């Protein structure tokens, strides 16, 4: 796929970098003991530290440090044994301190990399510049009152990991794949809940365009996007806008933009003279953060199998394609379900692709209809495994299996029991099938003549009628063969 966009005079290349803000999964905040629970009553989880009362001192949460290191390991990144907390100064109503405690020159995590996978089986490495720890701000509600903003400080002080990528992304799809990949790694590591709707994971997107081979163009930053769909929409809009400005002879102003999700357009957030000047300096309330090798080694022991390793296992051991394996592993819950199916009966390894198809098509559609997540599926992995085995062994056809699956969903029974009870076992006995076919031929003599005179298409009619007589239980291959044989004999 070409990444270039055709312009009036020459092609354009898009350059994108992402800053992902991921809330650390922890019980309490980064520098205070207030709860991090989402959706509580406003200002009910605010300590005197979070409210920035005079004289309050921050004390760091050990677990948040471990979570950041764990994430660093998961992102194949350098763990910095020495890092510093700085004050990033700006005024805003939901930042009572007047500064955010963040990390600037010396972040806890340095360079890393992640791989994104494309549909055509290829993949690309995206470099990560750094990950640093910082405080989240409170939440402002602007649209409730024409003259007031309402402020809730519950989120104020929750630990965030800011993950900054190099400008290695070249289009909206790559940006989408990249944030999905980061999200899935964080969820495997259990360092962030990945809930974009609740804002646990959100991104700022830096975008510029250039003539291929030129220096980077002037970039604009779109702030605070909280869905992959919006990220892609915002990028596509902004790229078009920048190219239009440049082709009309204008120039891009470096600006911070907001994306309006209802109009699908970006607009400048603040004017240039108010451009931020954060005046970072080391927070005198906090000593440097030092981590020793033993701590890092202990954290490394906690790293579970990550999406890439799992993907490799699926490709190597289960013969899945690189893309199928990456789709399957992108969501830990789905991938765990798949693993449990295979683990319930290792002979299913050979039919991995069929298992994947049953999960992603039939199981998903029935779960979606009922608004259920896979983790709450009434159909247990071992039972889905049994169903696939019953298909493999020709006990039931794929079509009957779909019926059985619905029954499994409703009753949570073992598929074998459903088949026995409902008499759904596939008919493979040729005598029985021949009897069905004979009946159909007897009842449709005219059609037989037409078929014999060259209307080949009627074959489907005979198959359908005979299948109906068997109540869908005839083995389709055997049925087909018998019909062909019988009709050709008539010739």
């Amino acid at each position, binding site marked *: 796929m070409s990444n270039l966009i055709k312009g009036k005079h020459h092609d354009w290349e898009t350059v994108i970098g992402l800053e992902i803000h991921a809330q650390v999964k922890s019980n*309490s905040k980064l520098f205070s003991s207030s709860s991090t629970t989402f959706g509580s009553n406003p*200002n009910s989880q605010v300590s005197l530290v979070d409210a920035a009362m005079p004289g309050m001192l921050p004390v760091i949460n050990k*677990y948040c440090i471990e979570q950041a290191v764990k994430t660093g390991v998961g992102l194949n990144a350098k763990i910095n044994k020495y890092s510093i907390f700085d004050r990033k100064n700006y005024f805003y109503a939901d930042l009572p301190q007047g500064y955010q405690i963040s990390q600037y020159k010396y972040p806890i995590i340095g360079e890393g990399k992640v791989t994104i996978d494309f549909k055509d089986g290829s993949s690309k490495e995206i470099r990560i510049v750094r990950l640093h720890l910082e405080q989240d701000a409170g939440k402002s509600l602007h649209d409730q009152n024409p003259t*007031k903003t309402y402020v809730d400080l519950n989120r104020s002080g929750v630990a965030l990991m800011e993950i900054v990528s190099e400008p290695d992304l070249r289009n909206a799809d790559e940006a989408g794949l990249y944030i999905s990949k980061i999200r899935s790694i964080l969820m495997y590591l259990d360092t962030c809940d990945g809930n974009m709707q609740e804002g646990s994971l959100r991104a700022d997107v830096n975008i510029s365009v250039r003539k291929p081979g030129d220096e980077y163009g002037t970039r604009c930053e779109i702030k605070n996007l909280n869905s992959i769909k919006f990220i892609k929409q915002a990028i596509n809009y902004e790229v078009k806008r920048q190219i239009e400005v440049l082709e009309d002879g204008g120039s891009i102003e470096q600006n911070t933009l907001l994306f309006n999700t209802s109009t699908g357009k970006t607009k400048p957030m603040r004017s240039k003279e108010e451009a931020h000047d954060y005046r970072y300096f080391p927070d005198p309330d906090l000593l440097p953060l030092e981590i020793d090798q033993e701590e890092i080694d202990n954290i490394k022991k906690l790293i579970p199998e990550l999406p890439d390793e799992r993907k490799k296992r699926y490709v190597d051991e289960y013969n899945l394609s690189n893309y199928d394996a990456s789709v399957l592993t992108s969501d830990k819950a789905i991938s765990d379900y798949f693993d449990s199916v295979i683990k319930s009966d290792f002979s299913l390894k050979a039919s991995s692709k069929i298992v994947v198809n049953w999960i992603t098509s039939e199981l998903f559609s029935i779960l979606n209809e009922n608004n259920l997540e896979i983790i709450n599926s009434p159909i247990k992995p071992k039972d889905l495994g049994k169903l696939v085995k019953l298909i493999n062994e020709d006990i039931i056809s794929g079509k009957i299996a779909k019926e059985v699956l619905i029954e499994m969903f409703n009753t949570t029974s073992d598929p074998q029991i459903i088949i026995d009870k409902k008499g759904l076992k596939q008919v493979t006995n040729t005598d029985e099938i021949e009897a069905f076919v004979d009946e159909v031929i007897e009842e449709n003599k005219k059609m037989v003549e037409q078929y014999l005179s060259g209307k080949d298409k009627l074959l489907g009619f005979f198959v359908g009628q005979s299948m109906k007589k068997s109540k869908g239980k005839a083995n389709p291959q055997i049925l087909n063969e018998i019909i062909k044989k019988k009709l050709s004999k008539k010739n």
Partner: protein
Amino acid sequence: MKLNTNTINKIAKLARIRLSEKEADEFLKDINSILDWVEQLNEVNTDNVEPLTNISSSALTKRRDENQDINSSDEILQNSPDKLEGYFAVPKVVE
């Protein structure tokens, strides 16, 4: 290093402090003399010296990840001049 009035006004603006012209002139003089004084440090050769972030030699104190919500929203909001249903109410900060 010498600051000019523009820089003083910019710093004041960033700190949300309004200065009269006279005050700006005074601060310009004061801050420039402080900078002059600090600049004496340039006489010391600091090649190969790591920057010092904190003069304390003790290690960063860490706490366990346990939460305790000790304040009710009423307590947190008690100094707020304007509030509504548990929220701080402030002048609108976006257009």
